[in-house]
């Protein structure tokens, strides 16, 4: 009985990672959730381009390493323009739109459905012009 129990335990330990891998969403398949860690330092994103498959839900975890307020706005040109023209100092937590307080971390999710290029940016006064703009490339 002890041998059977031991063999079962060994089998469970060996199989568990495989089961977890099978159950985990595959970012490349476009069917799951992918976490993207972003840092903001000296008012610039640390990544200029991110590639995902169409259909992927991206969980953006944004670390603000600056002592000033930043935001992350993900979306097509009309969304970007609305925020560039807007005066909203802070954003309610909407998918793809967050405010990140100084020296803190915040997160949001966004579903990339259509192949193409989607901008993520900060539209606080002067920040976009200063270079706070990057792209998510959505591959078919």
């Amino acid at each position, binding site marked *: 009985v002890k041998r059977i129990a031991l063999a079962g335990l060994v089998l469970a330990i060996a199989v568990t990672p495989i089961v977890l891998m099978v159950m985990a969403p595959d970012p490349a398949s476009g069917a799951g959730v992918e976490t993207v860690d972003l840092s903001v*330092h*000296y*008012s610039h994103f640390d990544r200029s381009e991110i590639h995902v498959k169409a259909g992927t839900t991206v969980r953006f975890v944004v670390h603000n390493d*600056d*002592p*000033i*307020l930043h935001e992350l706005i993900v979306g097509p040109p009309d969304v970007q323009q609305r925020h560039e023209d807007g005066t909203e100092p802070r954003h309610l937590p909407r998918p793809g739109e967050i405010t990140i307080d*100084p*020296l803190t971390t915040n997160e949001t999710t966004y579903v990339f459905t259509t192949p193409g290029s989607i901008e993520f940016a900060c539209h*606080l*006064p*002067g*920040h976009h*012009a*200063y270079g*706070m703009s990057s792209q998510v490339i959505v591959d078919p």
Partner: protein
Amino acid sequence: MHKRTRLLAPIAITIVAIAATASPAGACGGLIGENGSIQLERTTTLAAWHDGVEHYITSFSFSGTGESVGSIIPLPAVPTKVEAAGQWTLQRLQREIAPPIEFAAGDARAASQAGAAEVILTAQVDALDITVLKGGGDEVGKWALDNGFFLTPDAPEVLDFYAARSPIFLAAKFDAARAAAQGLNGGDGTPIDITIPIDKPWVPLRILSLGLPGDTAVNADVFLLTDDKPDLIGGPGLRLDRSEAASSSLMTDLRSDRNTDWMPAHMWLSHLALDDAAQNVRYDLSVGTDRSGPTYVAAGRATNDLFGGAIVSVVHTELDERVTMVVGLLGALLLGTLIIGLSRRRHRNAA
């Protein structure tokens, strides 16, 4: 579009007078009130060095009707005193380089619109609330936000640039309500005198580009008054226009202003002109005294003192650039020689 920034500065008496074009994000001193209804029109600074003590005099002018506005100045060391300065020192030094020109009201010169930090000194001068802070860029930036200032996107990098050499900053906030109660009008200036014991003074220049688009011109006149002819290290775009013993009439006028008991009768006058795009003004002015030579570290151009405090005999920027180039070439030559030597040795050992 070219916005203009103007700076006047003398050292050991160093005067930095600035006038930048109106721009909500373009503050000479550094910070602007969040509501933007009051904007700094001009920040004028005088840093004076004599016998181991620097007197740093800055004048703030304001316009608008909002509640408050402020500015920040990086300091080379902890000040011992902040008080009201004389009313005409800055203007008199400006006149010294352009005596015949009278500027009419409404002159077209550009106006300057365009852990926790430790509070180590506070003072009130007229409608200005002065706070001297000690802390890194993050701490000072956070303090500024917590106290109602708006920071431009380049502020984190600029604050770190200064904090790496001296974690001391002076924040000045205009209280418009108090200004009104004291009868101050828009355009009135409030000069302050900051007393800083220091052997190796420097004048902040990069702070002039804070919040400005990269192609915006920064034009500045930097005046220095020192005990002796100073050695200086600046950067590209800064040139020495005048270097001579200050005239007795100038010294008499300056010494007759308020709180100038410390000023000797004879000083050396230097005038440096800064004229470059904001994106190129990434340095400060290091000033040599009889106690210490200027350094590239103090000028914000090196993170370690490669030049070991060696005195550069002339401050001339072009010479400065040539020195940098020669040192770079010598370094490359030395490195190449080492590599070739090691390579030959390895071949010899292999044989």
